[in-house]
């Protein structure tokens, strides 16, 4: 990582430095200097809050849609063509149900 403000002799880390390091610390936590900047800078704190909130909401997304019936039809057709299942006598599922 590039030297920070403190390492370069400046007093405090600035937003550019913090946001440059952010991809690598947002999920694991930062060092003391980064955490200090987060406490003191509302803009960066709001940014981090938003990004973490998005990540948390993404975890809550559950699968909502089923594929159409033709997907299963396609699977059966392919398995028959490959000789992995016996051909259907009529357009029926493997259990004998119509698709």
């Amino acid at each position, binding site marked *: 990582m590039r030297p920070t403000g403190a390492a370069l002799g400046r007093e405090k880390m600035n937003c*550019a430095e913090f946001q440059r390091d952010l991809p*690598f610390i947002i999920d694991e936590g930062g060092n003391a200097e980064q955490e200090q900047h987060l406490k003191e800078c509302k803009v960066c704190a*709001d940014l981090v809050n*938003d990004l973490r909130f998005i990540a948390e*909401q993404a975890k809550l*997304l559950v699968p909502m849609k089923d594929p159409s019936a033709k997907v299963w039809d396609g699977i059966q057709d392919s398995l028959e063509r490959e000789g*992995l299942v016996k051909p259907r006598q009529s357009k029926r599922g493997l259990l004998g149900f119509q*698709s």
Partner: protein
Amino acid sequence: MPRKSLVIQEKPEKKTTTPEAEASKETSTPKKRTLATAKKILATGITEAEAIERAKTGDGEAFEVLYGLHKRRVYSLCLRMTGNTAEAEDLTQEAFLQLYRKIATFRGESAFSTWLHRLAVNVVLMHLRKKGLPEVSLQETLEPSEEDGPKKDIGARDNVLAGSIDRVNLERAIESLPPGYRIIFVLHDIEGYEHNEIAEMMGCSIGNSKSQLHKARMKLRDLLKTSKIDRAGKY
């Protein structure tokens, strides 16, 4: 750092469920024979583990049960990664065909759903490579661009998402991400893969994976804020 209270507009369902709970959620209609069959078989006391063992011997009924139990999650993964319904259905079909061919090699070292999920991810990534899509930009920007500059949000009112994002807007925003960003975001934040796993799958570095994920989240933040402003303007 204080966390804002979250206002979730839809009650989230649990991500992981038992096969029995999964099957019982769905209503039986004339066309949903597969699910009705799954319920019937599960109702007789056959577990998913037994269905797996039977499917390994070529039992078509057992394979149909496994399809019914896992099709939604596999399809959802394919749809989120590709953003295209037709492609997602083709890839779902391919994933289950590969499952049928490879199920005999499943040893139970991981959960079946994890194993199947990884298989589906590989099917999607293979498809994207064939299409020549830039899955991940392998050229890291060494100098920060204007887009990467520090966010100052000076003078902006309402700088935060205020703890309120509804599922529909979030899904829409994810769909509109550039493909490379979307894939990393889906794999990490939705599907729960770690950066070292993503790096291995995508053939990139861990640092690159983290960087792309960050850009994806930043882009989503912008999209969701714009959406929020648009909605506020209507009222």
